[in-house]
């Protein structure tokens, strides 16, 4: 299986855990999310925004988390970081990092792992950096939070991190303020800050969405190289299946706060097993013939308060039948992976590569 589109080198062999021996017992994954549920409590109301999310990321592996806006991808990412407001959020299930349930840790213990074992970069590089401190000061501060090092060593390592993400003249840029850099450079600085403490897992929440197309490819290159070189695992959150399929070996699709499909990237692209994933794939412009109308999924994601009891995609699904109004479970598939659709084995859904 080749990756035929766009000019980004396919580094899958070095960064995935698709080992040749299928009988080998899989090692304990780095991140193991089991049945994660997130409920926001407002004044007099409980809104379940995410339900029964299970996913794993092995050490060094890149996993994509895809779905439209409002599917709960970002909320899931923030929950893994412990960045949701604790006073108004309730959690179910487990978030195991190195076999340790983060949800049972005290805020202080969780903080020590945040930025050190698990880091996150965000969508908006223009607003994600503190405007009144230099780039270098913000990187150095991160380092000095997690390591006992002096100022000069922090400076050295910050410059090193800036060089790693391909920022030219890193020693000068170290003393620049965020507003003095372009969007792409800021996102690079943001990545440099996050990788400076060498986390085992990087959560990238739409890291290229706010950037120009040319810069997008550069940032993807940087992330791919970093992950290949340092063996850092990545959870790549995006609505762009095309972008995700270039970097990730596995793809987890979320719809309306639930995981609906979780399989190897190539399998998903050729033979999606959930109608929603198939719809997402078919609405990618790069895979559609030039002439004719771009296919799209009719309707929109229901809001959390209006989630139906049965299959949450039923209202927009072209294959819906009566049994779909029953609650759907994530079912193991014959050819590996999971899908949350009772018709997943019988339907032959169009992918993008066949």
């Amino acid at each position, binding site marked *: 299986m080749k990756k035929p589109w766009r000019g980004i080198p396919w580094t899958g062999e070095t960064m995935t855990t698709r080992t040749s021996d299928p009988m080998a017992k899989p090692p304990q994954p780095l991140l193991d999310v089991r049945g994660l549920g997130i409920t926001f409590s407002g004044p007099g109301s409980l809104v379940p925004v995410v339900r029964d999310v299970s996913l794993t990321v092995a050490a060094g592996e890149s996993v994509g988390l895809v779905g439209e806006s409002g599917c709960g991808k970002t909320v899931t990412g923030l929950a893994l970081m412990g*960045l949701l407001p604790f006073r108004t959020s309730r959690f179910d299930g487990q978030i195991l990092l190195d076999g340790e349930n983060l949800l049972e840790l005290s805020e202080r213990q969780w903080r020590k*792992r945040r*930025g050190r074992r698990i*880091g996150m970069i965000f969508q908006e590089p223009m*607003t*994600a*950096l503190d*405007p009144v401190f230099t780039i270098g000061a913000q990187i150095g501060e991160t380092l000095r*939070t*997690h390591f006992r090092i002096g100022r000069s060593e922090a400076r050295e390592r910050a410059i090193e991190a800036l060089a790693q993400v391909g920022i030219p003249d890193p020693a000068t840029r170290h003393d620049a303020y965020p507003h003095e850099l372009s969007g792409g450079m800021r996102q690079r600085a943001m990545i440099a800050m996050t990788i400076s403490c060498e986390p085992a897992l990087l959560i990238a929440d739409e890291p290229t969405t706010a950037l120009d197309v040319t810069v997008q490819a550069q940032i993807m290159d940087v992330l791919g190289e970093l992950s290949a070189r340092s063996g850092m695992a990545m959870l790549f959150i995006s609505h762009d299946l095309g972008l995700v399929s270039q970097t990730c070996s596995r793809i987890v699709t979320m719809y309306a706060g639930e995981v609906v499909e979780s399989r190897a990237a190539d399998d998903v692209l050729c033979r999606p097993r959930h109608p929603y994933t198939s719809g997402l794939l078919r609405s990618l412009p790069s895979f559609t013939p030039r002439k004719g109308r771009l296919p799209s999924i009719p309707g929109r994601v229901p809001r959390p308060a209006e989630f139906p009891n049965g299959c949450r995609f039923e209202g927009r699904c072209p294959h819906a039948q009566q049994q779909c109004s029953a609650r759907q479970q994530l079912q193991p598939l014959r050819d590996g992976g999971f899908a949350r659709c009772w018709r997943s084995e019988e339907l032959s859904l169009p992918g993008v590569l066949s």
Partner: protein
Amino acid sequence: MQNQFLRFLLWRMVQFLPVVAMATLTIFSLIQLVPGDPAATIAGEYATAENIEAIRHSLGLDRPLWEQYGIWLWNAAQGDLSNSLLSGLPVMDEVLRRLPSTLTIAVLALCIAVIVGVPLGVLAATRADTMLDRLVTGIASLGVAVPNFWLGMILVSIFALGFGWFPTTGARPISEDFWGALHHAALPAATLATGGIAEIARQLRSSLIEVLQSQYVRTLRAKGLPNYLILWKHGLRNAALTLLTVIGLVFNHMLGATVATEAVFAISGTGSMIVNAAINKDFPVVQGAVFVLVLIVIVMNLIIDLFYSLLDPRVKKG
């Protein structure tokens, strides 16, 4: 750099001229509405109409109003604030003699307002929407609403007359007796500070809440930074611009509010000077005092503008 700074200062001076002209012209116009005639006051009870007319002529009060104002402005531009109509003494000397008491009260009040207001604002922001927050916000609203002169009298009756901790009235020159001056200034300054405390706490609260909800604070938390660093280093630094603006406004307001406070505590500062002169329609004195106060306000604003460029790298000098 040096050149740029000088140009900045020069530009501010040019901006300052119309401000002074407008302020003094407004005061001059308002004083014309005050009943009474300074010439008659000077001439005394048994003066004839000719006497009063002669005095009026010698003081230049028989000239058209715009001419009176024009002469005053022309002299002021040359550094001469004219003489008092009543006492005949140079206004500048009188203002400079009384200014230290007023400044002592105002500066002390500002210090109290910052020292009390900042922690209150931070507390309210970090405990947003809790009972504590509502308590602080409530006290702040009360601080804005309570009239200064009334609060002054209450404080005097409790802390000066009741406990005897502070003198009831008067002031000491700060150049001769530093601690004595502070002791005398404590109650008037506390009176003056209430509005400032409330204003600083309220504005800092809303600014800090906005900062703490920002994307970059989420980044800071994602880095694993401890909460105290997020709040006191990044939070306050980003809210500092708002804080600085509020401090400037509060100080300017305090300078004006000294008028009532000095009356309550019988302090002979510039505030009481303005009140007395206005009652007697002694316009050169009122004008002169206002002129000096406007000057102080402008210098204060200039200092704050300079701090802006120090605190925020996005603000360019000049």
